[in-house]
């Protein structure tokens, strides 16, 4: 065989599974020998679970983690729910990496503001891990992360303990409503971002979460005088191939699976708003 069909998955094995929230699990996955492929933060992979099918997920581990790939998966449908039922040692299919990833080089030397909501932390976490591994390349790091309830926050210990202890880093947590035992902020993410009153100077904001959150976060950032080129977000579209051919995920001539899913707001503004 001369070269490999891009749609063919490799074999991968589930190392272990963490239950993050009632509907999100994090799977740790290895290829036949170590990582199945190299990747950059923000890139994704197609996971297969026969005979159910394939779906695309962000790689949530940092590329600096050489042990395995991690995926945080929310149970929303066929494949995702099948992936929720795997057991350690089970083999699944994987192909990738897909997408452009975050512009880690262009972000160098800047302060970073991460804004995540719910499962939207998944791609951010990879980048956050990467930035911590290259801590000297980046300035102040602020992480705003929210969910509906404390039970819906993923990677809780990591976020609250390890990240908060990193130098020059602040973690700001919020949930939508009061919960017993919750002593952090209460309120929606966009409001919290406004309240925290971040200054746009030399800062890049990276946001990912449910569409409605993104919409209001963008408005909040605009009010805080962030310019579109200072705002980075990732998009979610339906995907089947991951390589820009099956025809589902285009915004005008741009394919989210290939040319995205990471876009600056400036780039997005130039594209048809079909997402």
């Amino acid at each position, binding site marked *: 065989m001369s070269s490999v069909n891009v749609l063919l998955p490799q074999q991968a094995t589930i190392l272990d599974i963490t239950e993050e929230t009632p509907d999100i699990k994090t799977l740790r996955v290895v290829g036949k020998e170590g990582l199945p492929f190299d990747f950059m933060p923000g890139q994704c992979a197609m996971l297969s679970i026969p005979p159910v099918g394939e779906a695309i997920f962000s790689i949530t581990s940092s590329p600096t983690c050489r042990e395995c790939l991690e995926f945080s998966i929310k149970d929303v449908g066929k494949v995702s729910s*099948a992936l*929720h*039922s*795997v057991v350690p040692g089970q083999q699944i299919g994987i192909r990738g990496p897909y997408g452009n990833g975050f512009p880690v080089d262009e972000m160098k030397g800047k302060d970073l503001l991460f804004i995540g909501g719910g499962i939207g932390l998944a791609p951010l976490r990879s980048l956050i891990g990467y930035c911590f591994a290259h801590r000297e390349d980046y300035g102040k790091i602020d992480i705003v992360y929210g969910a509906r309830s404390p039970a819906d926050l993923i990677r809780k210990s990591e976020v609250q303990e390890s990240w908060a202890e990193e130098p020059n880093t602040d973690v700001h947590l919020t949930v939508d409503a009061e919960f017993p035992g919750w002593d952090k902020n209460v309120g929606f993410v966009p409001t919290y971002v406004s309240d925290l009153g971040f200054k746009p100077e030399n800062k890049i904001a990276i946001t990912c979460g449910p569409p409605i959150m993104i919409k209001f976060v963008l408005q909040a950032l605009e009010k805080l005088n962030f310019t579109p080129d200072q705002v980075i977000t990732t998009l979610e579209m339906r995907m089947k191939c991951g390589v820009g051919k099956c025809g589902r995920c285009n915004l005008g001539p741009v394919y989210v699976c290939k040319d995205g899913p990471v876009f600056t707001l400036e780039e997005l503004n130039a594209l048809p708003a079909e997402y």
Partner: protein
Amino acid sequence: MPRTGVFICHCGSNIAGTVDIDQALEASRNFPGVVHADEYRYLCSEVGQDIIKKAIEEYNLDRVVVGTCSPRMHENTFRKAAAEAGLNPYLLEVANIREHCSWVHKDMEVGTPKAIALLRAAAAKAALNDPLEAPELDVEKRALVIGGGIAGIQAALDIAEAGYIVDLVEKDPSIGGRMAQLEKTFPTLDCSACILTPKMVEAAQHPNINLMTYCEIDEVKGFVGQFDVTIKQKARYVDPVKCTGCGICWEKCPSKTPSEFEMGMTKRKSIYVPFPQAVPMIPVIDRERCLYFKKGRCQICEKECPPQAIDYEQQDEYIERRYGAIVVATGYDQLDPSVYGEYGYGQHPDILTGLEFERLFNASGPTGGKVVRLSDGKPPKKVVFIQCVGSRDKARGMNYCSKICCMFTAKQAILLKEKVPEAKSYVFYIDVRTAGKGYEEFQRRAAEEYDVAYMRGQVGKIFPEDDYLVVRGVDSLSGRNIEIKADMVVLAAASIARHDAPDLGRLIGINSDSYHFFNEAHPKLKPVETHTAGIFIAGACQAPKDIPDSVAQASAAAVKAVGLLSKEKLLGEACTAEVDHSQCSGCLNCEAICPYTAITPVELEERYKDGTLQRTVAEVNPALCQGCGSCTVTCRSGSINLKGFSNEQILAEVDAICLQR
């Protein structure tokens, strides 16, 4: 993916003799989602159930498959066991590897693979099982009886005696029904009024019975245990509290109209009670006829009424009540024989129906109890009775036998002979049907002792000549043509459903047969139930019946109603249908098909462009749904699904059975 446990029962050697249990266990372990498999000699025993319960806890099972006897046998046992271990009982599935496998096959080589296939199917289905909850329904401790004939009265009395409040709703001004119109009753010839009137009075006075005469059912909503019924109390224009039933008003009323009770053979007033023994003895004003209402003057009754009970301002009232159970006892009508032109009914005053003739015997009837011809007031010497007028007539009438005519004809012929000893009766019949205690004897007495001439045959024509009626027919036994010059002809017109039965059925949600008699839920085993849980039928509204049958059925219906009312809570069906509103297009084909009227349309608001849009979708009332699943097939898009037997589950079973590994 579920965590399924599979448990296989040996059933002694009943299963183990034909199914290789080890092999079946081994195969089960490879089914998707199976995390544990075990076996036991008698799974249904305490010990067996404990094995299942322990495993549920130990292996954190969320599905259980048992390979045992028929689910019709022990499904409940195992479901209860699962529930005791904290699992929703509906997460358990039974693979019937005994009745459907080990007992019908001889060899292990045959039984084992089949058992594995059945287990695989059960596991595939179980994986898709959802936890289900049988709905618990409150029971309103009050019953409604519709129709105040003998059947309704009896049902009301029985329910009331058992200690429950009953509303007895009658559309006419008085209860009594058809039986009140009868003179004497076969086969004992006791006087109808003598046995009925006390019952009527008892019903009226019973502390638990709330008599609601001159009322109609306006709307029925809800379901078993909680029927919400709106009853229309038609305005009587007489204050029932003030009225003493003295009768002065109807005596003085100057306006007359044909009496319904007397089959139009005599007149009643515009303010009236239908018959002298009416219960309650409170008149009503016939608004259509009343001179005051029609022309604006008269008001004699108002002037004459001593306690000033007349109230022209009265309005129809709507009463809303909740009932736990409903008994329908709306009785029957008589076919109008004028459709049979050859009998000349309606063209001659001496051609009568059975019910009309019955009234002639009655002391308060149109002739004051004298049996005379309406044309000239002379007693009839020759009376011809014609049977099966409209009954058993495929071509023009009803297919069925009206059941009572043979008997009431015999009765009337006897009564006639007693009243007019010189009278001679002739009966044209197809068959004489006298099934019933003492019936055959009764009829024979008529023929033998009362000189009634029974002639098997049919009447082709009746026409008046001079002052008699010529009846021409054929004696089908001898083939002879017969001609009788009769003074009177009595037609045993078929008993038919009340003309408004289909409307009433629709209103309360029960269905009727093609003759509009109400349908029982099962012709043999559920003769008083209807398909709608909590609604029962009694008397001639189900099919033509005589009084003893009507009363018996009424008591049976009462027992059913009482049984229901005595429950604190009702357990509904857990496996009910369910509509996916996002998919449902609102075609309502499912509504048309549901035998239990469990499906109704509801309106949804949906976002559309910048505004909203109304959309109709179907909705299932889980309290009414019995889980037949017929609707699911009618729904082409599969938008309505049956819990416990869903499309997904059945397809999974098909797939699993067809996966021959």
